[in-house]
């Protein structure tokens, strides 16, 4: 009898503990912030020109994906840089731009958001400098 009672107590305690853990994880899942680019492994690593060809083939599949691209910084502006004249990259930390000089060869990782038909450029967001 007492053994059963003890077991029951243990059982209840275990259930409550598991529930608490579950709720804890659930809560974390509900309220976590979006992953940073730095935490995500790039789905694709390539040269800027090579990448443009791929984009022409199937753009929708690249939207929202993190990619790593190497190229030449053909234009450096206050808000971002242009790689090979066709890929516009904005940075996670805007101070990063100051370390880039025009015509420098650079490798960046960023999130692809789409192809801008007004300016005919591919846009990357939250970029970080890899090399």
């Amino acid at each position, binding site marked *: 009898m007492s053994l059963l009672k003890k077991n029951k107590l243990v059982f209840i305690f275990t259930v409550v503990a598991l529930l608490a853990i579950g709720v804890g994880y659930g809560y974390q899942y509900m309220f*976590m*912030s979006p992953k940073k680019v730095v935490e995500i492994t790039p789905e694709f690593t390539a040269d800027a020109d090579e990448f443009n060809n791929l984009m022409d083939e199937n753009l929708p599949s690249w939207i*929202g994906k993190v990619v790593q691209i190497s190229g030449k910084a053909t234009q450096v502006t206050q808000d971002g840089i242009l790689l090979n004249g066709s890929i*516009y990259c904005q940075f996670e930390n805007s101070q990063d731009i100051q370390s880039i000089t025009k015509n420098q060869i650079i490798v960046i990782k960023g999130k692809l958001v789409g*192809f801008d*038909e*007004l*300016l005919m450029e591919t*846009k990357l*967001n939250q970029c970080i400098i890899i090399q």
Partner: protein
Amino acid sequence: MTTNKILIVLCFLLSLQLQAQKYYTRSGSTQFEGSEKAFEPIAAINTSTTVILDTRNGNIVSQVFMAGFQFKNALMQEHFNENYMDSYQYPKATFKGNLDGFSMANLNTNNTFDLNGVLAIKGLEKYIQTSVTVQQQDNRMFVSGVFFVSPEDFDITIPSIVRDKIAKQIQINIDYELIEKK
């Protein structure tokens, strides 16, 4: 004779080129907010909006990518892209419109303009009428304003379970700093 004609055409094209006064940005800020009181905030910001303003006639075009909207909450961002906006099928929203009576020369005396145009989201178009302010400082033009849209207008269905948490009218704030396009 023919070379002369070609020269004339060339000169004409060149003069057009010189006249084209365009201001643009690639990193304009577009924000929306659709929170109801007492619930967690439903808001996101996109800082890579492309905007082009033709200062001769006040025509304005802009484009914003859905995947570029950043939320504080990962789950909300995922739902926004996958369930509400279908960002893979409809990656962008576009706006084409005109600043009524825009004149670059009179910006000092008048910098509030009616903006009329068509906003396209998810392949559906909606006529928008609002007022924006345009300010010029050095070689930059600052365009800012607020307007409201309703999710229903763009066929965005909100599940009943969250219907009370999302405002019927979503507030959109625009804040663009344009530079001269060369």
